[in-house]
């Protein structure tokens, strides 16, 4: 579509108190790429996602979305501009039903989400869309359950469904597999692959190397708030610095 990358970070830095959490992170993500982000615990991966989605403002550098500088744009504007994300620990509307969780997103996407003049109905477009989305991730049978009563794996799926309903251009996934039992990993992997297949750009933080390596085009490695390397999975796995800092003897 366009020649510029859909998401780019220019010398992004973040200090909190005296601590440098992010240091001179520059990164271009072309449209349609699936990028894995790995790194030791505390490397700054979640923080990087927070900076991109606007939850934290960087103290240095710029974040560009579709060529536009969004460093000082509010969270909800970025979301409306097509940036979707999940959280490391499930973040849902616990008291709402599963379908309501998704419908909220569908409405936000379709506009007029905060209208007093429109009443959600069983049959309206947003609800239909929500149910479709739930079917995509295999949660349609739980549509009327209250979100807080879902099992861990189901919550993960609901998060993804909410993402799909947003129809975002750029997706940030923070450890989608954490706590998902081995038995459910393959199915969830498929769902994520499906997200990407629609031509969307996906950034994914994940410690399950087998999942990362099976999905991504490139891998970005973070360490101590810096970007150590961005390269193909094979090259990254072969990198001795990555091995010692991140993978350990497990490889």
């Amino acid at each position, binding site marked *: 579509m366009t020649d510029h990358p859909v998401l780019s970070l220019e010398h992004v830095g973040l200090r909190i108190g005296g601590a440098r959490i992010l240091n001179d992170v520059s990164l271009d993500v072309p449209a349609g790429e699936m990028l894995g982000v790995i790194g030791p*615990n505390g490397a700054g991966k979640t923080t990087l996602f927070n900076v991109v989605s606007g939850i934290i403002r960087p103290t240095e550098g710029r974040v560009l979305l579709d060529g536009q500088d969004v460093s000082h744009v509010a969270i909800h504007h970025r979301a409306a501009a097509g940036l979707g994300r999940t959280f490391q620990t499930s973040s849902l509307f616990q008291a709402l039903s599963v379908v309501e969780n998704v419908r909220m997103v569908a409405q936000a996407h379709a506009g007029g989400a905060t209208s007093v003049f429109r009443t959600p109905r069983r049959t309206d477009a947003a609800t239909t869309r929500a149910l479709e989305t739930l079917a995509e991730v295999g949660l349609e049978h739980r549509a009327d359950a209250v979100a807080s009563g879902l*099992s861990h794996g189901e919550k993960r799926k609901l998060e993804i469904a909410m993402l799909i309903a947003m129809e975002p251009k750029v997706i940030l996934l923070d450890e989608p597999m954490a706590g998902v*039992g*081995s038995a459910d990993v*393959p199915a969830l992997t498929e769902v994520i692959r499906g997200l990407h297949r629609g031509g969307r750009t996906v950034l994914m933080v994940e410690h399950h190397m087998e*999942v990362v390596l099976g999905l991504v085009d490139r891998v970005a490695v973070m360490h101590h708030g810096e970007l150590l390397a961005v390269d193909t999975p094979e090259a990254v796995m072969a990198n001795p610095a990555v091995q010692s800092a991140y993978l*350990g*003897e497990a*490889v």
Partner: protein
Amino acid sequence: MSEPILRVAGLFGRIGGQQVVEDVSFDVPATGVTALLGRNGVGKTSTIKSILGLIDRSGGMHLGGTRIDRMPTHRIVQLGVGYVPEDREVFGSLTVAENLRLAERDAAPRREFIQRLFPDIHDRRAQRAGTLSGGQQQMVSLARALVNENRLLLVDEPTKGLAPRIVDEVAEALAEAARTVPILLVEQNLHVIRRLAERVVVLSGGRVVFTGEASDLLDDEDRIQRFLGVHDATDPHDTAAGSTR
């Protein structure tokens, strides 16, 4: 075999009126690691919480001969039980140091040991635990249990969200701990289970469906497939995607 450290007989557990643990019975021997396994939502966490009295429970439980099924949580823990909860549950508004200080039960807590095990969190003593990264929180949570001498450790998914290298380190730490204290371990990572577990208890739908030596389960593809729903577990580093159709 010597007396088990923990004997669970006919344990029932409820959350909000709903039965989540049903008639569970098993023993945890006085040495080594016993793994509690099962798919998502079968009641592993709930079993551990029932043992500690953190949820409504009934049934017979003995810790080294002392009956504990009527005891309040803090008394059970004071008998020498260390607990690493599933969702880390660090106190977000307290600093790392305060989190650890709160956990110290013994007159001589093993501070050096912790410092050696998790140098990263030692460096972050003054940081509020709520601002730690997910993995760092997990380390604090583990450290809280390991700082005391215990008679039994209850450890719920200690490697969740940890980088592969740290997973190894945690496994190593647990292996070291297991030399002196028996552990009841809930874990999803088969690699870790293989490395640590001597015995396994498998849950399904809130009930025990298998107990035995770890090798009885882990060397039997069929059983793995049946109890844990995993196809190919012999090589945990094979891409998960590759194992599905």
